[in-house]
């Protein structure tokens, strides 16, 4: 594979260098007639709007007062109706499979018996929660909310890069990006038929309520559990609670009272039926998990087991989005749905396998290497963008603990233009659609969050690494 920048990438607006692609035609017509100075002014207004609204995130390890904005680009990423149909079918299939896999892994483990996934990969995985064995989460749902990261490499080539089945974040940006676009360029939405995203919070509330536990009486009480205002995603937690009309709670607001998890209100303790938790499994219950955690609720586990509360996502879902397991997803999908995966995986080398490791070490400068349990773009190597020194240092880490890594080819991610002072300039993007699951079915919000690498040639779109976002449009049929 060649170095970044020296090969041609598929541009979603221009195709392979030809005319404007169909989904972008209406937009480009509008854009060409606009004064760049006006768009520039609007872009600045958007930034001020994000700041006063407090749509900021804290970067770990930096000054606490240093709240940063995720850069927002005003050029939307546009997906045609037919492209979206194809994507959403593949996503739905994948989420169904993930859920069936979780149910199986925590019950009969048929897939291990059939030898389709190595037993070791589960049994020795930190994300596997033995306490979930035999448990039936209310409604049979494990992954109430998931985010499936998708990349595109050509007109008809889409890959799933990653599954997020724990606590995927970013949905508030999807919603606020659309709000911002509507405020800045209302006329654009009269011109281009774009599908709505604003019903996500109400769908989320419906979805969570549909999974109420046996102990629930009447309308379910839903609450969002946050680690607190210093968490990098706090804005999203409070945003979602606000939009759903749910309470935003922290561990110290909760305790177990009369066999229920209850929140301390001004009038005493009141039971919660569904807890949308945005803290990791480890921190949920200091009695049953990490004793040093102050983020969770002592005893919540016992209430959960007894059907007193729904925890969303269910504890133990991390086993399904583990990067070591990712390479088995095509088998997993086939095993549970009886169909071939509609959306392919990115080819992946498992460094725990000696043959794979050897090949990875040989080709390190051209590969992307990720930690199995890592996220947010931390601790990864992008071979083509790394210096010799960085590659050498990474090689040492990889040889020291190969089981901790997987490797993938450096994908030629598609680009979508961003608006710069000197006009439109292509930048690499990915896509995270958000998927809700309840006993009533699966709901996928049209589009999702488009993340964009703001630096020329960069393939890293993570916000913690300077990536930005775009509004994502799915066109009406």
């Amino acid at each position, binding site marked *: 594979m060649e170095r970044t920048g020296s090969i041609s990438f598929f541009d979603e607006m221009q195709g392979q260098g030809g005319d404007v692609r169909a989904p972008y035609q209406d937009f480009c017509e509008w854009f060409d007639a606009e004064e760049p100075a006006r768009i520039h002014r609007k872009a600045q207004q958007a930034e001020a709007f994000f700041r*006063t609204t407090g749509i900021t995130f804290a970067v770990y390890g930096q000054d606490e007062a240093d709240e940063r904005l995720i850069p927002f680009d005003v050029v939307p990423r546009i997906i045609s109706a037919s492209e979206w149909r194809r994507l959403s079918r593949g996503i739905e299939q994948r989420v169904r499979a993930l859920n069936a896999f979780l149910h199986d892994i925590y019950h009969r483990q048929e897939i291990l018996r059939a030898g389709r996934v190595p037993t070791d990969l589960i049994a020795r995985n930190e994300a596997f929660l033995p306490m979930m064995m035999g448990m039936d989460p209310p409604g049979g749902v494990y992954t109430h909310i998931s985010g499936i990261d998708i990349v595109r490499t050509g007109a008809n080539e889409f890959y799933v890069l990653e599954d997020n089945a724990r606590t995927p974040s970013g949905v508030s940006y999807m919603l606020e990006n659309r709000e911002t676009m509507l405020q800045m360029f209302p006329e654009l939405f009269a011109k281009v038929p774009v599908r709505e995203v604003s019903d996500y919070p109400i769908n989320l509330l419906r979805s969570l309520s549909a999974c109420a536990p046996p102990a629930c009486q009447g309308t379910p009480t839903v609450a969002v559990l946050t680690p607190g*205002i210093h968490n990098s995603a706090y804005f999203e937690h409070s945003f979602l609670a606000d939009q759903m009309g749910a*309470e935003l709670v*922290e561990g*110290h607001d909760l305790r177990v009272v009369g066999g229920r998890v209850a929140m*301390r209100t*001004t009038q005493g303790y009141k039971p919660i039926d569904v807890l949308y938790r945005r803290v990791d499994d480890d921190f949920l219950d200091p009695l049953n998990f990490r004793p040093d955690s102050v983020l969770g609720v002592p005893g919540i586990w016992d209430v959960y087991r007894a059907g007193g509360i729904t925890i969303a996502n269910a504890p133990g879902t991390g086993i399904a989005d583990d990067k070591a397991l990712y390479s088995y997803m095509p088998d997993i999908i086939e095993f549970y749905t009886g169909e071939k995966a509609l959306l392919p995986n990115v080819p992946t080398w498992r460094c725990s396998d000696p043959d794979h490791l050897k090949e990875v070490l040989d080709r390190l400068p051209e590969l992307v290497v990720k930690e199995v349990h890592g996220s947010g773009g931390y601790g990864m190597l992008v071979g083509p963008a790394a210096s010799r020194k960085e590659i050498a240092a990474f090689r040492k880490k990889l040889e020291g603990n190969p089981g901790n890594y997987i490797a993938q080819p450096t994908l030629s991610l598609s680009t979508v233009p961003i608006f710069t002072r000197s006009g439109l300039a292509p930048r690499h993007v990915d896509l995270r659609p958000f998927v809700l699951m309840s006993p009533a079915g699966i709901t996928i919000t049209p589009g999702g969050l488009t993340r964009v690498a703001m630096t020329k040639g960069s393939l890293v779109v993570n916000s913690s690494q300077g990536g930005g976002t775009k509004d994502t449009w799915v066109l009406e049929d």
Partner: protein
Amino acid sequence: MLGKTAGSLYWMARYLERSENNARLIEAGFRIALTRSNSAQAEWRSVLVTAGSDWRFRQAHGDYHSARVVDFLLRDPANPSSILSVVKQARDNARTARTYLTREVWEAVNTSWMTLSALLKRQVREDDLPDVLSAIRQQSAQVRGAWTGTMLRNDGYNFAQLGTFLERADNTARILDVKYFLLLPSVAHIGGSIDNVQWETILRSVSAHRAYRWLYGTEISALKIAEFLILYKQMPRSLAFCCDKMQENLDWLQRGYGEETEAGRMAIAICTDRLSRPIQSIFDGGLHEYITDFLRANAALARQVERDYRFVE
């Protein structure tokens, strides 16, 4: 509503009130420092005592040098009552209670924090001080405007109002506590007038020097000033006004929740025992003792509100 959220609304309001009060104290102190350089030190000391920051200031600094005191009160991160610290705490509490605030209120609080942390990034030059103080007042007025104009009149509103008026009563009482000796008959000897600049400073520190003149004309007496600040119910920073508001908001809470509380009873007791008597009888019993007792009762009420409404476990 969550007890924590009630507490956050209450503290958000207290801190916002505190930032405004401290700005007013700085303004009054600065005026004296400019016009009467020989009483500047004493005046800064009493400002620091009123703000509850004197011992902390003395730990770090030697004398009451104007620029140092102003910097300490405005922006010293080591001073938890500095305007910068207080506005930051107001914003943190607003973030915690974000789901209960209207977009307008949150944006006003957040903008206030962004504006003031930019203004107070560096030490403020003496000739810029009036502008900075006026910006602080403006920010606070914007928050209050958004608050009054957009918030539902529900329990959350009541908790924030309680925070505002407990803090304000505390502030007015502290000003009286620090300055009470100026109002004693022995200083303002009978029939004579008390020091013009001094009484004006007291009134300025509650933004009421003009209101006083409208009300009492040229008659400046210790008794009248004390009456104005303690008992006059139309004056929005008087103890009587603040306590009326506390009682009113506790009343709403008790009715809304259908539950009488100890805090409610305490507020009534403060109003009837301490604020329904003529000013002369307060002076007869000793102004200083009166103020000390009021501060104690006010603080006890604040603690009881936190307990009754479960702000913390």
